[in-house]
């Protein structure tokens, strides 16, 4: 792949370097809201696909909706695109209400899972189609614009081909070029990688991210693949039953899931529930964001766990006797950890290559463990108090 970032195309990326510069431009520009959903609801006859969603996407941000099928992520994208109208609520682009505006007047680029290339047009005609309705940005000719975009997606000289002469990955890159050609405000991608095989998916993922950064275009991405969501996003919303469970950058979603659903949907996780028997605020110990760290002792039935956790902003301090939900990632469970030890029975193991995922049984609960050692029978594992995260308490 051509190094897109280190060798930017003059006509395509000048805006990226002027407006966003080296990433330290004015706070005004960085904080501008490109897209806002306010109390958006979409109801169908029997179901509520999107349930009172409010989200703000910043200018130039790569924002991802991730969740299982039927969680409303694709409907949300279709509402943003204007293919469907919300039952209630407002959608704004740069503060301007576009709720009733038809898709052709919204300044958007859309890329679908199945590429949706016009089969009766050549690659170049596909890319040029949107330029029938606006003049090419930057004052270049239509042909030049098409050539620039094909170069951007590494398909120089392929303009005369028919879409069905291209591989799936190439077709999807044509679709991306076509969506970008008119210079849209917002790029919307609906599961664009799902039809591709795993290797290609990872390569195209990097390419999409590089193009997005080069152009600085506000991008909304929909995927059911949590790994993809973590890898590509600046920020994301984990959706469930039509509403976001958590809206945060990928690291936070992974390390500090705000609900049990997020903890279990994003990556493997072990979730424990138990009664808080002791609380100790470690006022002196601050985590990187400066919030207080709290030491909890939790009774989980066959033993107690010591957990050191920082409280989510807005979460009230836990009280003794209440139920706490904590999670520990499988990679943080080990047989050498001295704290929080418990003994579980090995049920099965899956060899994944670099590690093996072992399924353990403990107290009617399945425990996941990552290891490289062959295990069988009963094993004693433990985890450091800092490795656990307090999801919630009540």
């Amino acid at each position: 792949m051509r190094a897109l970032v280190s060798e930017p195309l003059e006509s395509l990326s000048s805006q990226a370097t002027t407006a966003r510069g080296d990433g330290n431009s004015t706070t005004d520009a960085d904080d501008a809201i490109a897209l806002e959903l306010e109390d958006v609801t979409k109801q169908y006859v029997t179901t509520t696909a999107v349930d009172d969603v409010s989200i703000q996407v910043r200018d130039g941000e790569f924002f991802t909706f991730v969740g299982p099928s039927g969680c409303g992520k694709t409907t949300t994208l279709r509402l943003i695109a204007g293919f469907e109208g919300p039952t209630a609520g407002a959608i704004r682009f740069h503060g301007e209400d576009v709720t009733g505006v038809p898709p052709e007047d919204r300044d958007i680029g859309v890329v679908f899972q199945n590429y949706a290339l016009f089969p009766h047009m050549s690659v170049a005609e596909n890319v040029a189609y949107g330029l029938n309705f606006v003049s090419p940005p930057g004052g270049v000719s239509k042909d030049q614009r098409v050539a620039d975009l094909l170069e951007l997606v590494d398909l120089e000289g392929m303009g005369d081909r028919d879409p069905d002469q291209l591989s799936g990955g190439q077709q999807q890159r044509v679709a991306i070029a076509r969506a970008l050609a008119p210079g849209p405000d917002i790029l919307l991608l609906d599961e664009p990688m799902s039809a591709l095989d795993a290797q290609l998916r990872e390569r195209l993922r990097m390419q999409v991210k590089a193009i997005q950064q080069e152009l600085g275009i506000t991008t909304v991405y929909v995927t059911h693949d949590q790994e993809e969501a973590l890898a590509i996003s600046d920020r994301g919303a984990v959706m469930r039953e039509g509403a976001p469970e958590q809206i945060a950058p990928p690291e936070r979603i992974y390390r500090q899931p705000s609900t049990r659903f997020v903890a279990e949907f994003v990556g493997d996780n072990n979730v424990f529930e138990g009664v808080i028997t002791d609380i100790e605020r470690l006022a002196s110990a601050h985590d990187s964001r400066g919030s207080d760290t709290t030491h909890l002792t939790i009774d989980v039935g066959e033993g107690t766990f010591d957990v050191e956790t920082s409280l989510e902003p807005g979460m009230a301090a836990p009280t003794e006797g209440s139920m706490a939900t904590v999670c520990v990632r499988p990679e943080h469970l080990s047989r050498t950890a001295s704290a929080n030890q418990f003994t579980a029975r090995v049920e099965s193991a899956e060899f994944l290559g670099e590690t093996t995922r072992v399924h353990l049984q403990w107290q009617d609960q399945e425990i996941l463990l990552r290891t490289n050692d062959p295990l069988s029978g009963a094993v004693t594992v433990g985890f450091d108090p800092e490795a656990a995260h307090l999801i919630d308490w009540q």
Partner: protein
Amino acid sequence: MPETGPTPGPATGADTGDDQASRKRGPRRVRDRLERRAIALAAVGTTIILLVMFYYPVATVFVESIVVDGALTLAIFLELLRDPFYFGDLARLFAGESPLAVGADLLSSDRRLGIVGFTAYQAFLSMLLSLALGIPLAYLLARYEFPGRRTIRSLTILPFVVPSIMVAVGFVATFGENGTLNGVLRFLGLPTVSLMFSLEAILIAHAFYNAPLVARVTTAAWESVDASAIETARSLGASPLRAFRDVVAPQLYPAVLMGGALTFVFTFGTFPIVLALGGIQLATVEVFVYQLVQDLNYAEAAALAIVELVISLGVLYGYLRYEAKHTVRSRGARPLPRKPLRPPALTGRELLPRAGLAVYGVIALFVFVSPVASLIYRSIVDPGAGFTLAHYQFLIDRQATGAAFQVQPWPAIRNSLVFAAAALAISLPMGIAVSVLTTRRYRGRKLIDVVAMAPLAVSGIIVGIGLLRGPVFGFEIGTYRITMTGTIAIIAAHAVACYPFVVRTVAPGLESIDRSLLESARALGASRTRALLDVELPLVWPGVVAGAAFALAISMGEFSSTIILATGTDQYTMPVAIERFIGRRLGPATAMGVVLLVITSVSFVVIDRLGGESFGL
């Protein structure tokens, strides 16, 4: 664009925000606005045409049957239902006699069927014959590979474009007293047969029409059977016959039933074939409606037509209910491999089905090929006299010297072409608009579908009477009287009859287009109409052209409403001219029939070349 200083809009190069705003949202021109509303305008136009040229005229006919001297009454219906002339022994049931006595009489040999009973009886027999001739053809086309298979498959579309009056002439030429069948029999020294004005002739003619339809829908269903479903059944221990019964047959029933139901409805409303082949003693409901109209007895004609419509719609409704419950569709399946027609081994198992198909081939030749061959043959050969062009000469002479009141060939050809072109110009946009509206998903879509497809179910005679008694006679708006010329009425009747066929060819294509293609175009800045013109129509173009060819052929062959509207005027078309000739001279009728055959064949070739396969029936 918001006023956030330097526009962070992506990929705009040296553009400033203001430039971009003007680039994107320039003032909308009038043409632009018109274009955005084009589909809505076409829909409104379609609605108006349907209301004025179909629903209003048909309603006036129906009103006439329930309003007598300004009072609402069902007397005409009750009289009709109790009249043994129409309902035979069933009429006694409606008159209040005991069902047991009526039932016993119906089972006895001297039962009376009445006109309606006879119509249903012949429709039922026609359906059985069509199924008997159609299903073997489907088996041949779906399961065997042989040269010419594709051609035969596309020929099954022929009945839709062949004018029924032409089929009638072909049958007279084949089965008439001096027809080719008797000619062959005489040549072989066998006794001649008299099939004219017999039920058999009508049934064979109906089978000629409808067996290919049965074959068509059944073949399509058979081809969509997934081979792996049968392989699964076989691997689980089912014999080939058992696998057929359990896996294939259930997927064929709905198609066979659809073919049967449509055949029943079509033959129940049959008109030109019975008019030409049946004579008055074998008249069906539709012929009687025509007769009553000729006698100016509109109220009874309308009442009878309503009875006919109710029965037809009842059958269709029953079928649709069944279809909704039983449709099995395995899309994108791996189809069954076709067997070669030449037996790979001389075993009974290989030879038996092929021998059956050979017998079928002879019968099919007789039913499907001989009428058309006879039509051409009789137009150039006179029994006893040998080869002659006298019949064509007659057409030319009639044109040159015929009196004004006589039916002349050229006006018939010219009228047919003009009406067909005008009907096409109207029905194509109507059909496309309705296709767009009925392929979108929204509540009430089914209702619109039914309302828009109603012209398929209402007989042409009713539409003809309605247009004659309604718009042609005139509306009164205030003190103004608006009348419509016969020409406009005929074109309207043709357009209304044609456009459902455009919908049937275009809508399935539109339905199968991935909606993300349309949405991509919209997101790239195309209006709904532009997306239709740029993306959807080019992709379903074969369907559009096929629909246009259908419309042309249907208009050219339309008989029922035209004969009502053209009676006593000089707006007669080719089918009407053939009907006029057929009563007096068979020769000129066959010559005229050949002219019509040539013109409709051109339509057929167009359909075949440009995607007859996409026809959605």
